[in-house]
């Protein structure tokens, strides 16, 4: 099979990056993968509420906003846990940028999906099945190399995504993306510096950075799946077809990986699915519980 991380001549770029050709590996990951592989996925194209009206791409924007929101929550966990205090601040600042990007989109989504919901309604009042983020961002915090591997891929993806969205036919989307682009370039720079430093560092740091690149692999293809919501948004020239971002993202990551004296891993034996349809992996439940419990325990509370 082709590797999900490396462009190959057979890569059509029109569907998902890779398909599982063997049985999923054993363990918890395998059961999550199996349950997520049932087709068709419930809720694949549903809008989370209301009449789509004149701008029927709320579901697409919700996927983008939820990616940013959930990853902001995960990155925030590094505060007091990073290898050095400067990195606490760095990951906290990156989380803040992502939180801001999500906040830029949620109220707008509420205005076009007919529900009139505000940012807190989206962030704090939705159950797991209503979230549209990819599995990559909800995975538990691993070691620091795991985080840098995830941040490298996700920020490379976001650079290409927001470059495309800066030319969106929807002015609000273009505005949020144009703003975000400056930020995610800096995130990519930050992740790249760490991957090079760790990969081209000691034997131990090299080994662990390489292992992290292997572990993140199964969660990458989801970023490039053309689900129904993104096909619709791309057709309206509001969104970007995810599969069209694949080659450029891989090229960005490959340059960094090469300089880091690491190698892009071969294909994974399984891949995650279902995030954009509201089907999530085990860590999502506890992430939401931690993120939402104050807001839900005290409905309507303000300070």
């Amino acid at each position: 099979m082709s590797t999900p991380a490396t462009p190959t001549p057979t890569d059509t770029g029109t569907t998902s990056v890779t398909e599982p050709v063997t049985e999923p590996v054993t363990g918890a990951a395998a059961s999550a993968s199996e349950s997520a592989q049932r087709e068709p996925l419930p809720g694949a194209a549903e809008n989370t509420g209301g009449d789509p009206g004149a701008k029927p791409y709320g579901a697409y924007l919700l996927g983008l906003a939820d990616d940013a929101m959930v990853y902001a929550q995960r990155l925030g966990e590094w505060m007091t846990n990073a290898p050095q205090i400067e990195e606490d601040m760095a990951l906290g600042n990156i989380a803040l940028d992502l939180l801001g990007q999500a906040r830029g989109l949620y109220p707008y989504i509420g205005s076009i999906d007919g529900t009139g919901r505000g940012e807190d309604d989206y962030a704090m009042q939705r159950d797991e099945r209503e979230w549209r983020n990819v599995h990559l961002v909800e995975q538990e915090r691993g070691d620091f190399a795991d985080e840098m591997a995830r941040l490298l891929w996700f920020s490379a993806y976001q650079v290409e995504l927001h470059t495309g969205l800066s030319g969106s036919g929807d002015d609000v989307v273009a505005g949020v993306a144009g703003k975000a682009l400056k930020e995610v370039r800096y995130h990519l720079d930050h992740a790249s510096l760490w991957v090079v430093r760790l990969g081209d560092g000691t034997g131990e740091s090299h080994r662990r950075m390489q292992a992290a690149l292997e572990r993140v692999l199964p969660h990458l293809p989801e970023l490039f799946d053309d689900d129904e919501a993104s096909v619709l948004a791309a057709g309206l020239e509001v969104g970007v077809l995810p599969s069209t971002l694949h080659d450029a993202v891989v090229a960005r990551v490959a340059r960094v990986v090469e300089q880091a004296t690491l190698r892009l891993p071969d294909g994974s034996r399984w891949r995650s699915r279902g995030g954009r349809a509201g089907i999530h992996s085990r860590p999502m439940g506890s992430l939401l519980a931690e993120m939402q419990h104050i807001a839900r325990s005290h409905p309507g509370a303000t300070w």
Partner: protein
Amino acid sequence: MTTVAVESAVAETISRIPDPEVPVISISDLGILRAVEVDEQAHTVAVTITPTYSGCPAMEAIASRIVFEADRMGYAADVRTQLSPAWTTDWMSDEGRAALLRFGIAPPGAVPAGEPHGPVAVTLSRHVVACPRCGSADTTEIAHFGSTACKALRRCNACLEPFDEFKAI
């Protein structure tokens, strides 16, 4: 540079509001105050601001300060946030840059023109930033991110002082 025309007392007061996180620079000199439209008949003022970063936590403080200052002068303020065109450090005034330098923060350099295309070498060394205290160009980046979203942390190898650098974006 901001393009706000200061033609009334309320507009001038608003333009002088300090940034809450870097209080040596006004929101006008920082370039985040994009427009002030005063209606002297209705005693209303429409203010447009733009965030430095998407998640900048100072925006709400700035908006409420604008409403507060306008109210003190008898005006009802309507504060709007505008994302596009995205803020750039190129909008910072010369006065603002000088104020940052006096405060010990290295002002932002010129924004790199676009993003280089094709293979780009990743290096561990960064652009040259002069120390705001002794002026030495021999400085090192300590951290990619500083005390606020808009700053990075550096250290001068000549006078050994750590200092903030306002990142050019």
